[in-house]
């Protein structure tokens, strides 16, 4: 069955620490990959996406993610987190085909950045 796994459910970091959130998927075909962020009390927002091309993608607010096809991974990174990065982060995957419309989400990672 197709699935998306986020390995860290709760992460606590101090400001200026580096962040890496893991995401792995189990799909057999060509995929589109996304990271969404949900700040407290706000709606889900797209952080970055990968469809094709350069496997290192840059998103908003200094975030980036690297697609490693051989590892079925799409890990999210930020070199130096800020208190305002406290949020829930969701990795999501869908198949790059007309039948692959379902956007499958991972269970999310709750990030708390302390001053």
């Amino acid at each position, binding site marked *: 069955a197709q699935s998306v796994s986020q390995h860290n459910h709760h992460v606590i970091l101090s400001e200026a620490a580096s962040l890496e959130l893991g995401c792995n998927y189990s799909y057999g075909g060509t995929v*589109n990959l*996304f990271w*969404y962020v949900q700040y407290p009390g*706000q*709606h*889900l*927002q*797209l952080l970055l*996406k990968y*469809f094709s091309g350069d496997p290192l993608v840059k998103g908003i607010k200094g975030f980036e993610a690297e697609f490693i096809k051989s590892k079925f991974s799409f890990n999210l990174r930020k070199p130096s987190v800020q208190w305002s990065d406290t949020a829930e982060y*969701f990795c999501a995957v*869908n*198949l*790059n*085909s*007309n039948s*692959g*419309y*379902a*956007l499958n*989400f*991972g*269970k*999310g990672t709750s990030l708390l950045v302390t001053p």
Partner: protein
Amino acid sequence: DAMVIQNPRYQVTQFGKPVTLSCSQTLNHNVMYWYQQKSSQAPKLLFHYYDKDFNNEADTPDNFQSRRPNTSFCFLDIRSPGLGDAAMYLCATSRSRVHEQYFGPGTRLTVT
């Protein structure tokens, strides 16, 4: 500036009393989705419309229905809400099925 609008933001209904949640979009996107998100869980797709074509997820209960009268609006009808249907309901839109989705702020449904 709001692109995906959901009303109301908070809805309280009684057990078994039908309720309708609404979603509108200003993006002119072809696809509109409804998700259910329970506390500390990932959003779960209930169904989506590609234009007027309705696509139901296999495990979406019959209790949940949807209508899309035009491109801009989509409704979620819960015919007989149970306590287990209390959740955040998210509407999203996308240009096509493979493109990124834009989410509304959600409607938090409480069932008493």
